[in-house]
């Protein structure tokens, strides 16, 4: 298990070739109270940087970008009914996807926890 972070304020918890992804507590705080989450379905493939979902808060809509190239194994469908969970537990229960990583090399360009903390400091 290893934790990675992106400049778009997403986290990836990597276990083998599967990554669980979500947005960071910092991102959730900046967004404000989340009222709507739209996710793609399991089975869809995407390239790193593709838009793979939308989070809307009381303030604005924000896109979710694919942190790495891969395929959606599972989407957290519970978020459709409980979008506020993104504010309550962004780095645990309110994960967005479990994805199968196509190219583990892409992980090397992401940040570790210390680097991410520096970014948002």
């Amino acid at each position, binding site marked *: 298990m290893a934790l990675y972070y992106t400049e778009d304020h997403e986290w990836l918890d990597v276990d083998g070739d599967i990554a669980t992804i979500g947005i960071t507590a910092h991102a959730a705080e900046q967004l*404000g109270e989340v009222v709507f989450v739209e996710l793609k379905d399991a089975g869809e493939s995407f390239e790193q940087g593709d838009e793979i979902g939308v989070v809307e808060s009381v303030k604005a809509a924000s896109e979710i970008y694919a942190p790495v190239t891969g395929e959606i194994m599972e989407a957290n469908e519970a978020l459709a009914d409980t979008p506020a969970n993104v504010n309550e537990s962004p780095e645990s229960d309110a994960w967005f996807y479990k994805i199968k990583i196509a190219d583990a090399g892409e992980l090397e360009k992401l940040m570790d926890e210390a680097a991410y903390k520096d970014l948002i400091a």
Partner: protein
Amino acid sequence: MSQRTPLYDFHIERGAKMVEFAGWDMPVSYPLGLMGEHKATREGVTLFDVSHMAQVELRGADAAEKLEALVPSAITTLPEGKARYTFFTNENGGILDDLIVSNAGDHLYLVSNAGRADHDLPYLKAVFGEDMTHRSDLGLVALQGPGAEALLAPICPEAAELSFMETTTASIDGVPVRISRLGYTGEDGFEISMPADQAEALARKFVDAGAEPAGLGARDSLRMEAGLCLYGQDIDESTSPIEAGLTWAIQKRRREKGGFPGHGRISRELAEGPARRMVGILPDGRAPARAHTEVTAPDGTRIGEVTSGGFAPTLGAPISIAYVDAGFAEPGTEVALIVRGKPLPGRVTALPFVKQNYKR
């Protein structure tokens, strides 16, 4: 550099998230958050800093006649102690700004949008000259919510005597104030104008008495639910008051006799009906359809555009305010909202979305 209201330090001290709005540094929310502030306004009482708005006094025996040349509402017959919603119109029947006018006895007291002060102040100066004073020495706060009267009554008994859209002078802790029973949230409430250097002390007093500070975020979701127009978004120089559903603000004498800019278009639209109308739209599902979202008929034909939209905390659902072709304005009409390229079904509904709770 943005201007600061007399309550700037108060906002910072309370942990407000500050944003630039119309050239002012304003609180968008406090740590309680938009939803909590919204709910507190609907159920209790909240304090909004609205000191950024322009407060103007017009004097002179013919001030009401002169103002009637700029607005389509009846001002000469506005009784002393009463306030009225109106708007400056242009020659094309569009809206230059909306405002509240009060008959304060020996003068007219106006409150208009901060974002239009650059227009309104010189516009009024050109007509009223020395008889017009911009009272930038005053602060302005709004106490909004069903708990507002109970909060104010012990410290300002005159407040409890007012009905909706009435105004009076009073004193709170020896501070001279103008207090008006109105607001922009759809709830009962008051706006209190006071000397800027006393604003912070009074704001603290109101908060100590139970008012929850609320920011521009909640102000926007509250006014949307109440179906109230935001200048620059729902109304502007291209929209007529008839299209915007503001016909009620144009009294009978003014409709018939005119004497204000844009009477041609306004009387034509009153007679024939406007080509488009402002409506509420309730989207199916949970996705908000925000400003500039395209509105289509179910067959995909473009019929209008959303001007304000977001999440309505009271309803727990998204709402949108839009202009649509007049043939699609009937409540119940099915429409589609094009969100991120996909049509989302929705239904036209009468405004307001949430019943207004004024003390008449």
